[in-house]
């Protein structure tokens, strides 16, 4: 195995290029010191109880109503706590969890194919390329089966077999069938279940729901999270909400790339504001790029749509061998002029190589000028996913039965029928493994501030396996948080905070000041134009392949763009009505800060792991090459102040139950 090794000497002697400083290591202090299989039971036992009659007096704010937030709100409401739930959409049911297609994993072993808690745990750690924390992942696998029971009891219409029992499929390259699904709409059905459970508590008066409310600041009083500042997006009013604890379940930040499979409103504001108030940010650079999305069609493109990965089971991926053929009708390109590049490079896995490899190879062939589809800028960014062979092998009906609704969706968006012309696909940003650093209790470094779901960094290491985010969100919300947060709440109610406490006034003033500043710039460029430019920088230099040189360049570009933003952005309208430009402006301002931290994190991690691919660190066959001796840690970043260098705290990853190995797809 040869590598173009990074200059590790510099790492040994200190921070790279003076972009950050290093602080004390962090530790997860809450995982009990017992064997991993007993740990969660022990933690639940150790966690203090709250007398039912006291729970009403204890309040919890939950930002986010996706799978993580809605399930936590429902469960804490049922337990009798006073919950305040926030989301930016007009209904909790619209959180982006709704868009998840494929399914949810659980170690039920209904097929008796050798699945177990340990195997799910093992697959998840391996899939994360050994960059996740063992203790949290083990608990996730343990709770997975309970999730399915809970959802079935709520009436989630999972796919069933004729005998009336639940159907499973295998997903994401694992060898057991442990994925539960509801057609291609699993996220929708799970979210409706959690939403209904939460609405039941709204009806019962334990949960108060604030829709079209955007959280813009965390309130920290005497070192504890005590509330949030939110903007009522309809009236523009800036509101103060106080509580005994705060949970952020605000989803992922993939929209820092502008184009992603996320919803238009997905943002980093909630967690970024918390980060600025003292919560460490874990592994910000870990991003998952999904290989099968519908390519960009033009400059007006507002988002990208995922096509299920299952298409790779029967479709063959190719590009023309010659650049001159790229604008030809693909049906007229003879076999010998086609390059089935995945089959060529990976003869044993072929079109079924893991997500990161498939994505990277698509980028390479397009960089060579062999991409297909419309020219966007100077490049064609697309590869063919061809079903003609499957259609002649299987019959049109059989193909329609398996992929019909995906083909329809594709046709609706592109106007082309995959039954007649090969589909075009291209990778797109899909998921962010990074997020707020949390301990075993899902508590951030600010006491009383918790993070759940995609918003935390906890379970997926450097790469997430298919169907395991939904599992994590629901494990966090239904089963983990309600148990750990009670240990914290048992010490409350905490001293009442007054609305004119200096910390509250300061937080509120900060929010109002930012809004005024954004409206007062009155520059030349729209918010979207800045967001698009940031996205291009991130995609180019902090996307599928990252290099020392590219990342350094990106940091300069982002700094310059951020400087221009506050001088030249144009936000029209006023602060006291619905103002969508203003909403976007606040989010993009935060993305402009996060983007820089992502690049610094990617720069400092001079190894490749999972979705983080450093060109300088690869094996001979172009696979990610880790450096466990130097990088087997979580990078937890501390905000050190405006303009100051971020501080890196390392949490060493200790593997006791699983042996560290190099991933291989030979």
């Amino acid at each position: 195995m040869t590598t173009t090794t990074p200059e590790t000497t510099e790492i040994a002697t200190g921070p790279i290029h003076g972009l950050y400083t290093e602080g004390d290591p962090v530790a997860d202090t809450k995982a009990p010191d017992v064997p991993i299989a007993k740990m969660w039971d022990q933690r639940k036992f150790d966690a203090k109880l709250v007398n039912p009659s006291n729970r009403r007096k204890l309040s919890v704010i939950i930002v986010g109503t996706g799978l993580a937030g809605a399930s936590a709100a429902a469960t804490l409401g049922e337990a009798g706590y006073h919950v305040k739930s926030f989301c930016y959409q007009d209904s909790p049911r619209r959180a982006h969890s709704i868009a998840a297609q494929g399914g949810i994993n659980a170690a039920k072993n209904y097929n008796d194919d050798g699945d177990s808690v340990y195997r799910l745990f093992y697959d998840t750690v391996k899939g994360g390329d050994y960059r996740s924390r063992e203790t949290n992942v083990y608990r996730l696998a343990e709770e997975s089966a309970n999730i399915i029971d809970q959802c079935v009891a709520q009436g989630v219409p999972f796919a069933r077999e004729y005998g009336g029992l639940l159907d499973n499929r295998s997903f994401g390259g694992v060898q057991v069938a442990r994925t539960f699904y509801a057609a291609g709409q699993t996220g929708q059905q799970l979210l409706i279940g959690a939403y209904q459970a939460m609405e039941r508590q709204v009806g019962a008066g334990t949960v108060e729901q604030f829709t079209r409310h955007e959280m813009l600041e965390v309130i920290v009083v005497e070192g504890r999270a005590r509330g949030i500042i939110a903007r009522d997006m309809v009236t523009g009013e800036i509101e103060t909400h106080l509580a005994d604890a705060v949970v952020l379940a605000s989803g992922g930040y993939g929209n820092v790339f502008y184009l992603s499979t996320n919803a238009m409103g997905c943002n980093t504001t909630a967690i970024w504001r918390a980060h600025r108030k003292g919560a460490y940010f874990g592994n910000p650079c870990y991003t998952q790029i999904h290989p099968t999305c519908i390519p960009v069609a033009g400059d007006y493109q507002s988002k990208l749509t995922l096509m299920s990965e299952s298409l790779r089971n029967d479709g063959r991926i190719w590009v023309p061998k010659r650049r001159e053929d790229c604008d030809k009708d693909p049906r007229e390109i003879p076999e010998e002029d086609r390059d089935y590049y995945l089959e060529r490079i990976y003869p044993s896995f072929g079109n079924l190589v893991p997500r990161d490899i498939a994505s990277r190879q698509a980028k390479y062939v397009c960089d060579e000028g062999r991409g297909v589809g419309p020219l966007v800028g100077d490049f064609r960014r697309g590869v063919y996913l061809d079903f003609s062979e499957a259609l002649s092998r299987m019959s049109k009906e059989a193909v329609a039965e398996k992929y019909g609704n995906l083909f329809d969706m594709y046709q609706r968006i592109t106007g082309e029928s995959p039954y007649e012309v090969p589909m075009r696909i291209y990778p797109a940003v899909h998921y962010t493994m990074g997020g707020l650093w949390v301990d075993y209790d899902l508590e951030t470094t600010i006491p009383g501030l918790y993070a759940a779901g995609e918003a935390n960094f906890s379970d997926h290491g450097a790469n997430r396996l298919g169907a395991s985010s939904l599992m994590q969100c629901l494990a966090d919300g239904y089963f983990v948080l309600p148990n750990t947060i009670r240990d914290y709440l048992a010490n409350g109610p905490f001293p009442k905070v007054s609305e004119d406490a200096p910390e509250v006034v300061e937080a509120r003033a900060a929010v109002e000041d930012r809004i005024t500043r954004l409206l007062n710039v009155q520059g030349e460029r729209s918010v979207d134009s800045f967001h698009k430019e940031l996205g291009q920088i991130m995609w180019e230099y902090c996307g599928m392949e990252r290099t020392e040189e590219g990342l350094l360049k990106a940091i300069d570009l982002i700094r310059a763009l951020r400087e221009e933003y506050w001088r030249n952005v144009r936000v029209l309208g006023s602060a006291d009505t619905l103002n969508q430009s203003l909403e976007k402006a606040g989010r993009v301002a935060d993305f402009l800060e996060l983007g820089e931290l992502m690049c610094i994190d990617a720069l400092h991690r001079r190894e490749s792991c999972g979705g983080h691919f450093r060109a300088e660190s690869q094996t001979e066959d172009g696979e990610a090459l880790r450096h466990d001796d130097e990088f087997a840690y979580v990078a937890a970043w501390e905000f050190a102040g405006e303009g100051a260098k971020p501080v890196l705290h390392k949490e060493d990853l200790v593997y006791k139950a699983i042996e560290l190995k190099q991933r291989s797809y030979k």
Partner: protein
Amino acid sequence: MNLTLKIWRQAGPKAKGEMVTYQVTDISPDMSFLEMLDVLNEDLNAKGEEPIAFDSDCREGICGMCGLMISGKAHGPEVTTTCQLHMRSFHDGDEITIEPWRADAFPVIKDLVVDRSAFDRLIQAGGFISVNTGAAPEAHSVPVPKPRADRAFDAAKCIGCGACVAACPNASAMLFLGAKVTHLGEFPQGQPERSARVVKMLTQHDLEGFGGCTNIGECTNACPKEIQQDVINQLNIDLRHALQQMT
């Protein structure tokens, strides 16, 4: 292509609204309808005019956030959501009118944005199965015949967009309600609360100011998820049953 757009502008909930005409040029047939509005908004912003407010989030037809009356049709000429409608469904020179959902129960907030919180309150009234976290039995302890599970799923596909209400001359929410009642009513787990559910949800429906159902069927035609009218029949059957139990 070049198009003439007549768009409803309304500064706030209490403001008087009006139709305003805009021209857009050079629209690609591959754009989605909302991307076409994005382009117009960028244009307005550049000219110093406040962009048009409209709702959307997932832009892939599943969250139910988008929804416009397009030349008199909820979600426009195709059976899909507004965000999944593409400009190839239109022709050069077309004039398109764009309005918000119109229904008493969905008041306008601004421009094309309406308040659909009434739907949440319908669910709060009874659109759930009461089971606390942790109290669930093993999932395989209750088999569900596949045809019933499939019917439940078909009804559960509703995205809560409100097109059915907007399309109905009575502004009735019976399709939305019927879909929920059918979804939960197909499961053994949904039986204990079945009668109470339909009564409570219907009571709330009327309180919110939705109209009654006179079997016109516009709701189904407008529904992007093709929820069938038989869910309304199911609702009526459940209601009759519930009333019999009560007397």
